[in-house]
């Protein structure tokens, strides 16, 4: 039960962060922020359906909401706008461009990472509940360690990312990314 309550708290916190980002993003021009707070109903509903309150669909919605601001800096997004423009929807393309151009600033990476960390903690603790109960172990130690690790990543990960700012070659970063994908595919396949 404690884990379920914890997961609801984590989910609500993530919703609060994501809505906060959405309020300051072009999304607020389409959907008023006060309606986005209705997402807070989802975690208890998931729990009633005997699912993890912070389930993947909720996480995906929150990530999409939080990354709308990212689109304002995305080359891909502007190329799509160009395509729309080319096919004759000039009015729509110009309207969207005028909205998104106003939000061209570097997005808040710590808010995004907070949502991801909260989701990961929720998923691990949910899996832990079943397993640790089966083993007859308490949740105390593992949860505390999980919290510490999550907090440490939240604090220090931006520092690791700052290597990028200090000029770590992008090729090297790309190689790491490709290797990670290959490892992930191998692990999932096994």
């Amino acid at each position, binding site marked *: 039960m404690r884990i379920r309550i914890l997961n609801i708290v984590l989910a609500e916190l993530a919703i609060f962060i994501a809505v906060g980002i959405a309020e300051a993003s072009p999304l607020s021009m389409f959907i008023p922020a006060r309606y986005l707070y209705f997402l807070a109903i989802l975690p208890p509903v998931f729990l009633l359906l005997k699912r993890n309150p912070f389930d993947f669909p909720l996480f995906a919605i929150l990530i999409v909401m939080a990354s709308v601001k990212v689109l304002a800096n995305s080359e891909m997004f502007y190329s799509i706008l160009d395509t729309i423009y080319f096919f004759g929807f000039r009015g729509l393309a110009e309207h969207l461009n005028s909205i998104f151009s106003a939000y061209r600033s570097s997005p808040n990476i710590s808010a995004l990472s907070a949502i991801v960390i909260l989701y990961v903690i929720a998923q691990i603790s949910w899996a832990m509940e079943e397993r640790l109960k089966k083993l007859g172990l308490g949740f105390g130690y593992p949860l505390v360690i*999980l919290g510490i690790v999550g907090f440490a990543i939240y604090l220090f990960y931006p520092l690791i990312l700052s290597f990028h700012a200090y000029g770590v070659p992008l090729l090297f970063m790309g190689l790491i990314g490709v290797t990670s994908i290959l490892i992930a595919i191998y692990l999932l396949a096994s």
Partner: protein
Amino acid sequence: MKVRKVTSILIKTSLFLLGWGILATSFELVAVSIIPLLFLAIPHFITVNVERARITGGSYIGEEFETEIDLRATGFGILKAMHKLPEHFELVEGSNAIATFVLGRNDVKIRYKAKPMRRGNYKLDRIVLELEHPFLAWKTDKELRVELELEVKQRLRRITRVETLRGIARSPMPDVDISKIGVPGTDFREIRDYVAGDPMKFINWKATARRNKLMVNQYEVEGKKAVWIFVDANHYMTFGKSVRNYLECAIEIANALTYYFVSRGHKVGLYVVGRGICLYPDVGKRQFKRISEELMRIEAGEESFDQAFEKCKKLLAIYKPLIILITRPEYSKPVRFVSEVIKAKIPVQIIALKGKIYGDEFAVSLFEILRRYTLKSLRRANLIEWDIDKPIRQLMVRVIG
């Protein structure tokens, strides 16, 4: 190493963020996609050593034994340790498995009581370890060896009295009979022809001169008559439960009979039909121990009673022992064995084991008819039927006491 549910979730999350980041050409989303993988990168390492391992008790079937195993675990992660027990063991108290969260150094104690339900030599030397990532991302299986062994014997049923059985032999039960071979005593029996190996001092010179060939005096030998127990260990004897079947019952009877006859000074021999194991008749507690140990090791095999007879007929002719067959005659059909033995004027006793037969009524009746027919063909031997589910003590009272 197994990929767990948590690992799969974290990788999928990472791939989702990565995919979304690539689509949106966003460095931030790609950077965030590393975060779930960082949780997987938390190392887990546990080393486990056995500090102490001890077993007390459990020498006989059904006797409880206490196990104490102390482990020392060092590292970080979740440890699950299980002392592996053979299938014929029943846990009475405590648990042979323990799980704990290891952070730094932990002393893990496994304490439990169990009882063996089947005879045998058991090696209880395996401790199975499951070392799990603190966030359940990975799991590795390991095995630890400890020096623990348990010898489980049949509990001995003491027999106090043996009745004389009627049979075609002059004295079928050996209690009142004397040995055919052994140390010669002073009681004169007869004069017979000399055979190579007879001591010179036994030559009867007067008789030799009269018959014009070497004649020797034959004296009664000291000691009681031999008993030879034939335990059937063919595969059909293992029908039933693994802890209580025909073979287990036969072993229990053989063990009790061996003790009874050995303690009364008889020579006792054993033949395991099915494995071809033969222990020649001998006296004393050492012989009982040898037979008992052999009985403890018996596993099912394949051999007919005719083959068994061919192997030891010379010895049977020398010893002229009381033969006790413990078998399921409807399967073993020892008809030729019995007739050959009776022809050689060797007394024979058959303990025919029977148990519950499963099947429809017609099949059971048919089986019973066939069984009766086989038993009828063995009527020349002294035959006793016994239900394996009944306590052996009652059988002993009926058969020999």
